[in-house]
Every structure is written in structure tokens, then in C-alpha cells.
């Protein structure tokens, strides 16, 4: 668990980047720090691994004040991923991924198997990618390596600063979806910084919306979209609110509201299926590509039930009525 207690950062020139920020991030939770540039979101994140040091207040990880810990040891226990530029261009993919394990002086055999494991986890064929240099990778591949590197030493806490920032919309969407799947498997405590409200709604268990160094609202994506705490929050969401509402409802929420239970699972893994964590928009997309009247829904490999097109349309109409 990570706790911010009245954390402030004031620069010597008087700029207050973060003002008395207090919040808690539960173990295994993904908290998104959302805001425009200058909102203090990146500063807040960098104070966790002490790349920036707070001028007031405390940050605790599992009750331990980060300022009381050796910064080097602290950082090696915290995964760190940033935009693709953060890969070391002088190191191969394998060397990049194994940076922290090597700093922690793992045995060579353990490092090698871990590199391959991480590459497979982010869907890159180890034998093909291990020895490549970052410049020989596409933007999406770099990003996957970046995520693999952040997770390589199996840190309990991961900081991600716009990790999908510099990607084209299609690759970005694909990586976000993969990240969601990955995240549900690895159960890390993640602080995720972004300026993109759609990404925030998609990725975050909760969102902390920051503006000018101050916390505007903290809550689940649906809470923030349906009941903005102040004028700034509703302006920030702006005309995206309807679309965002569709994003906050998931296939799981349809299953729960309609009390759909798994009758009998399809014998084979169907080509077209819905994921429990998919938003209504993604579900509409899936129906479009499948061209079927109903689709089975899964939580990873577990069959949850079948959703029909009218049921989905009904859920969308409900959101329409509310929004």
C-alpha cells in the first residue's frame, strides 16, 4: 500500500508543483494520476521513487517513509516505465530487460530465463527479439520491452509515466488491452500517469484528477464521470462524457445487472468472444466484427455466460438515458 500524506513539492523559485496531496493506493490497485501538463501528476509519481523529493509531507510504502530509505535500494524495488525513449539504445533487448535483475546481482541462468519469460509475457518471441537493439524495434515493440523491463525484477510497486504515450492510436489501443489482461494476472500496485482521459478510464481502478498541483477528484472512473466533484472536473471531461460513460460500463456490468449465468460453456475456444473487462464500446466493436447475434463472455479462460446483441443495445440505451 502506498500512502501520500499532505505531500507538497515547492521549487526554490516558488513554483508549487504539488500542493498537500493526500491519497492511498491499495495493494494490487491501479491508480491513474490524470491531468494536463503542469498538473503535478508526473511530479507526484516521481516522488514515490525519490527522483524528486517532497518539500513537505510523507510518502509511505507499506508504512515505511520513502525518505528514510536508501534511494538506490528503494528504486530497485519499484518498477519504472516511461515513454519509449527510456530504453537504453546501447543495450540489447535482453540487456535492457535485465537491468534491475543485474543490479540486484541475480545469477546468470535466472536472469536468462527471466528475460525469456518476460518477453513471452509481452508477446515477443524471445529467440527473435532477445538480441535486437531498441532502434531495430517498432514503437509498439519498444513499449512492450519497456513494460517487460519494469516488471522484470517482480517489483510489488510499478510506476508508469505515459507508457503508451508515443504510439499510434491503433497500437496504443492494442497495448492498453494487453496491459489490462496482464495487469489482472500480475496484481501489482501501479501508479499510472496519463493526460488522456480515455486511457485513464480504461486502465484505472481509480483515478486521481489533478490540476495545478491540487487534487480535484479521486474515485472510480464511473464515479468521476457520473458525478464530477466540481466545475473543473466537468470541464475536463467536457463533451466526452457520453463516450466515457460507455467506456466505464463493462461486459461484466451487463452480466451482473441481467444476472446472466454460465449455462453451458462452448466446447471449443470460440474465435469471437467478449472479455469481462471490455467496455461497451469494445463489445459493440466485437459484435460488429463477429457478425453474430450473441457472443460468449470470458474472464480470461473462465466462461461467464452469453450476451446477446439486444442485451448490449439495451445497456447502451440505458447509458444514453442517463448521460
Amino acid at each position, binding site marked *: 500500500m502506498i500512502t501520500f500524506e499532505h505531500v507538497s513539492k515547492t521549487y526554490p523559485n516558488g513554483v508549487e508543483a504539488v500542493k498537500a496531496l493526500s491519497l492511498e493506493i491499495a495493494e494490487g490497485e491501479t491508480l491513474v494520476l490524470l491531468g494536463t501538463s503542469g498538473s503535478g501528476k508526473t511530479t507526484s509519481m*516521481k516522488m514515490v*521513487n525519490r*527522483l524528486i523529493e517532497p518539500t513537505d509531507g510523507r510518502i509511505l510504502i507499506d508504512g515505511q517513509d520513502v525518505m528514510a530509505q536508501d534511494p*538506490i*535500494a*528503494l*528504486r*530497485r524495488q519499484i518498477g*519504472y516505465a*516511461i*515513454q519509449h*525513449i*527510456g530504453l*537504453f*539504445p*546501447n*543495450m*540489447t533487448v535482453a540487456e535492457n530487460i535485465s*537491468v*534491475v535483475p543485474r*543490479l540486484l546481482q541475480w545469477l546468470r541462468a535466472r536472469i536468462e530465463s527471466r528475460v525469456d519469460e518476460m518477453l513471452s509475457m509481452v508477446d515477443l518471441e524471445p529467440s527473435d527479439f532477445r538480441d535486437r*537493439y*531498441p*532502434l*531495430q524495434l*517498432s514503437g509498439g515493440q519498444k513499449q512492450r520491452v519497456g513494460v517487460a*523491463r519494469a516488471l522484470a525484477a517482480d517489483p510489488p510497486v510499478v*510506476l508508469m509515466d505515459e507508457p503508451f504515450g508515443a504510439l499510434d492510436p491503433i497500437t496504443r489501443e492494442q497495448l492498453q488491452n494487453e496491459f489490462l489482461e496482464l495487469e489482472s494476472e500480475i496484481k501489482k500496485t501501479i501508479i499510472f500517469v496519463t493526460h488522456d482521459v480515455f486511457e485513464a478510464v480504461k486502465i484505472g481502478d481509480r483515478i486521481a484528477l489533478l490540476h495545478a498541483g491540487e487534487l480535484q477528484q479521486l474515485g472510480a472512473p464511473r464515479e468521476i464521470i457520473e458525478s464530477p466533484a466540481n466545475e473543473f472536473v466537468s470541464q475536463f471531461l467536457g463533451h466526452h462524457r457520453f463516450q466515457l460513460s460507455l467506456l466505464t460500463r463493462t461486459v461484466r456490468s451487463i452480466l451482473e445487472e441481467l444476472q446472466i449465468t454460465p449455462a453451458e460453456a462452448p466446447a471449443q475456444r470460440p474465435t469471437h468472444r467478449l472479455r469481462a473487462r471490455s467496455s461497451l464500446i469494445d463489445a459493440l466493436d466485437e459484435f460488429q466484427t463477429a457478425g453474430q447475434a450473441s457472443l460468449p463472455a470470458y474472464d480470461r479462460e473462465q466462461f461467464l455466460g452469453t450476451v446477446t446483441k439486444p442485451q448490449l443495445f439495451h445497456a447502451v440505451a440505458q447509458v444514453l438515458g442517463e448521460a
Partner: protein
Amino acid sequence: MNTMWANTAQFLEDYGQDILRLTGDHLLLTFMAVLIAAAVAIPAGVLLALCSWRRLASVVLGVVNIFQPIPSLALVALVGVLFIALDLPSIGLAPGLVALVVYALLPIIRNTYTGIRQVDRTVIEVATGMGMTSRQVLFQVQLPLALPFVMAGLRIATVWTIGIATLVSLVGAHSLGDLIFRGLSRHRIGLILGGAIPAILLALLFDWLLGFVERRLTSTGSKADGLPT
């Protein structure tokens, strides 16, 4: 035509040994000067680049820069005068070597400095954020990424030194310059060419050789080659 070949053959028979020996001296002088300069300039360039007090770098680079526009012949002469003033032997290897080292310092120190400074700040920050100590950041990230720049500095320094080494014959250090100056004073074109042509070839050879090493170092990661299609 025949007489020209015969003359050349005769010349090589008379002076071939001298040319070979002086080429060796020339190379030895060059290597000593570049090695000494590198031993000073690479650490100095790194320290300057890492120093948080920016003024220091501009002051030091400024001072080193002063030597650059001084005509090489004048510098060699000045070093000779300096040695006399300090009551040191002003004829021989030492004053020649000092002049060459002074010249070789600048390209190495400037390139090392630039090489370290050009490393993306984000890369350094992510290295720090992952838990590298500043020494690890230097040796595992900054220096490897600066290496092509450092190599370019060494290449430039070597080529310059090969050129200027012909001049230090004037203060009694042996090099291919011996032949050139002897030829000039005796109006013997053969001697002038016998010194000048090997010196030119050495400069071209080392420019190519070190350029090749430089490109190899760059292509490992810092340059896009073998991109997947």
C-alpha cells in the same frame, strides 16, 4: 620515362632505410602524443560534462580552444622557447611531444564532453529511477553512448598529430619532417616527397582505419541499421 624509374629506384635504395625508420619514429611520436592526450582529455571531458557548475566547462574548453588557432609552427617554436626559459633541453623528443599533446587535447576533450552531454536526459533519469548509482549510470549508460563521439575525437586528434608531427623535426624530435626539411634546405625534391608522401598516406590510412572503428562502435546500437522491414 626509363630514367625516371631508374632515378626513383636509386633514390629508394639510398633513402629507403631512412624513410622506413622515420615513418616508425613518426608513428611512435604520434601514438605517444595521442595516448598521453587521451589519458588526460577523456577523464577531463567526462568530469567537465558531469560537473554541475556549467561555467567550469566553458572556461576549460575556452582555454583549450585558445591553442587551436595558434599556427602549429608557432606553437612548436613557442614550446621550444618555453623549454629554454625553463632551462630544459630544448632540442629532442620532449618539446616536440609537448607541442603535439597540446594540439591533440582539444578534439578529444571537446568530443568526450559533447558525447556525454548529448546523452538524452530521459535515459539518464530512467537509469537513475531503476536504481543505478551515478557511477553505474556513467559506466553502463553515459560512456557507452558517448563512445562514438570519443572515437571521433581520437580520430581527429590522430590525423592532426600525424600532420603536425612533420613540424616537430624543427625542435629535434625525429619524424618524416626530417626528410622534408632536409630536402627543402638542399633543394632536393626527392627528399621532400620521400617525407611528404608517407606522411600523407599515414594520415589517410589512420583517418580511414579509425573511422571504420568508429562506425563499428556506432552501429551496435546507436545507429539504425538492420531495421526489420
